């Protein structure tokens, strides 16, 4: 999603300036996008199947609602992306530059619409709205528009999009750094690095504030148990809650070991009041708390910690760029190069926070995860297929790395072979 935006920025700038290098960049990253997209399609179809195969009861009960947004995703976004991607890759000569930009724009639109509709589905699971529960336990839709005006949706969507933009700008910057370090395709390398760090700084800031901030406030408001668990607040703090920087949840004694915390900050960040009360985990019944508190706590802290590091590195890079020293300062180039896996980790841990935080529910407060599974599918069968998918996805991951690596190695200048 992030890359599609960067691609149309390159393409748009090419239309304006008519400099070949921007067109090279757009086409080069579209190749990488295409590999991502193939992997996305083939690992995405199992996701659609999985609702029915593994979560039959959940699908039966809520299909009338989340079926809407998921079917829209399938009909609109998936279609926009897959069809216009082929046109973008294939049709430059046939269509002329302006139409080519337009097809790229539709790929971008499709991928962002896809994110929006998936997030709308997830937002309903996090904070259900516009529904009615029938006598037989089924959820039916009463207000279609509420699915999209869900207060959970917009912050979550923007946070997710900004996070994907962070990831892609790191990818773009690190490919640039790589070219500068190996002294190949240096003109392109400089362009990639510059674009990557500029967009990287903007998106790293936006991912924290306001989008991350708004999300955290939503969690505090609608899922206070999840909020207490992810922040590591075991006991309710009446006179303002501290923010935990480091510490390990000790689930036996119900406290944090080796804690380093700053007093009152959490209350201020959440409510803009220094001494506002924050409810701790002691306030909730065991059955209402997320089942894996340490995993949730660590995921959240890894995400926030990495996010802070990203802002720092991108900020320093911008400083060097401004003083025209970025392209020759090897320690920073190496740092950017080796940082590339971390935005992916931050994204994954971010989703862990959303999903672990919602536990023990599938639909928050209404339907427990254990009540959503396929009762007729035995655990032996699910384990068998899970092991299969683990192996298959490892193979796909390996192929993905080989192909992206090969594309990067070939470089942006070798468009035709």
């Amino acid at each position, binding site marked *: 999603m992030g890359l599609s935006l960067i691609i149309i920025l390159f393409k748009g700038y090419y239309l304006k300036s008519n400099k070949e290098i921007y067109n090279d960049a757009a086409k080069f990253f579209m190749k990488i996008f295409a590999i991502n997209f193939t992997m996305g399609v083939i690992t995405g179809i199992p996701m659609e199947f999985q609702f*029915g195969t593994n979560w039959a009861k959940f699908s039966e009960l809520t299909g009338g609602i989340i079926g809407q947004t998921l079917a829209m995703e399938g009909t609109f976004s998936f279609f926009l992306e897959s069809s216009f991607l082929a046109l973008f890759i294939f049709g430059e000569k046939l269509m002329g530059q302006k139409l080519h930009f337009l097809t790229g724009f539709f790929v971008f639109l499709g991928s962002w619409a896809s994110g929006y509709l998936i997030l709308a589905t997830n937002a309903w699971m996090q904070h259900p709205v516009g529904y009615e529960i029938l006598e037989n336990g089924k959820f039916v839709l009463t207000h279609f528009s509420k699915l999209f005006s869900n207060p959970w949706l917009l912050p979550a969507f923007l946070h997710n999009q900004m996070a994907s933009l962070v990831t892609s700008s790191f990818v773009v910057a690190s490919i640039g750094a790589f070219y500068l370090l190996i002294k190949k395709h240096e003109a392109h390398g400089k362009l990639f690095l510059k674009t990557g760090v500029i967009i990287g700084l903007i998106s790293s800031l936006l991912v924290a504030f306001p989008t991350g901030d708004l999300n955290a406030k939503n969690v505090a408001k609608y899922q206070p148990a999840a909020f207490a668990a992810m922040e590591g607040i075991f006991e309710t703090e009446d006179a303002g809650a501290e923010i935990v920087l480091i510490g390990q949840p000790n689930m036996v004694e119900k406290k944090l070991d080796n804690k380093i915390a700053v007093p009152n900050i959490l209350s201020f960040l959440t409510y803009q009041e220094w001494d506002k009360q924050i409810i701790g985990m002691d306030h909730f019944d065991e059955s209402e708390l997320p089942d894996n508190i340490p995993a949730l706590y660590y995921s959240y802290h890894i995400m926030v910690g990495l996010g802070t590091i990203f802002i720092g590195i991108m900020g320093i890079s911008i400083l060097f760029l401004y003083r025209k020293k970025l392209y020759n300062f090897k320690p920073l180039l190496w740092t950017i190069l080796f940082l590339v896996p971390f935005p992916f980790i931050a994204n994954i841990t971010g989703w862990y926070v959303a999903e672990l935080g919602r536990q023990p529910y599938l639909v928050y407060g209404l339907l427990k995860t254990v009540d959503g599974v*396929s009762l*007729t599918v035995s655990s032996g069968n699910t384990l068998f297929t899970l092991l299969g998918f683990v192996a298959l996805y490892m193979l796909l991951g390996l192929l993905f790395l080989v192909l992206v690596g090969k594309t990067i190695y070939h470089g942006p200048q070798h468009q035709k072979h």
Partner: protein
Amino acid sequence: MEIFWFVIIALILTIFFILDGYDFGTGIIHLFFAKKEKDKEVIAKAAGLFWDSNEVWLVAAGGLLFMAFPTLYASAFSGFYLPLIIILWLIIFRAIGLELRGHINHPIWKTIWDKSFGVSSLLLALFFGIALGNIARGVNLGGVENNLSAYEPHYFFLPLWDASFSPSTTHPGVIDWFTIVIGIIAVVTLTIHGANWIVLKTNASINTQLKNVVFNLNITLAVLTIFSVSIWHIVEPHPLANYLEYPIFLIFPTIYFTGLIGLFFVKKFKKEVYAFTCSCLMISGGVTSTLATMFPTLLPSTNNLNPDLTIYNTATSEYGMSVAIPWMIIGIILLIIYFIIQKKLLGGKIDNMDYGH
């Protein structure tokens, strides 16, 4: 409202079988008939340029089924757990076969992905046929044994096979001799369809040979069709009941037989598109005839205790179904517009088009 959504989903599913059907068929021809590298490449391209926009229709059908008939979606997808996972694997291997063969120019690399593409296509055609056979035959809803349901009345679970391989046992498996017959029919039909597509879209050196293949397979298909019609009463005691009640449904078998008979003239057609049209008619007629025999049932029950799953007892609320109509129409319009653009850009023979890869 239920009927409206049933028709829409059936239509989308039929379009999917026509479009992705030629992809599968192309893979089968690729596996058995393409010997020269030039042919292999161009035949892979005849599928590779189109597969992902064709698979959009499967995703759309799945999504709409989920939205309009959630109970059916939940029941069928969990009950057919194992075959669906197999289909997923095949879809994945077919897709990576198509997408990856061009990335590294080495015979071993290409052979691996060509086989991956061909074998998965063959098995996908077989399994989609088997799936259709399962839906026609029905399943033991509720897992009834000795007149007691093991699950809720609308759930079931099918093993891949039952030792007897008989469609009329208490707990039939996914694969029995009836569903295998339907699976083979699907393979033959889609092979014909794929061959017609290759002849239409490429100048492969095997095109003349393929016309003979189509002719011979068509004879096989005619025999198989008569055989399957004659055994249909085993799975559905009154196969003609719906046709007697709604004579308009007879249009579906008519479409099928028009395509089937038309293909006997494959060697005499002046335009290649005629043959392809015939196989399109055949597929759409075959799928719709099967659905018409069952209507309004979506998944029959093989026991007397639990009722069939129909469009009426699996649908979501009236409001949900009506609110989805406007956006669905916009979606369909978009799909059609795209289809026209694609036809314009990728119309004609594709041999010499440069696909950027």
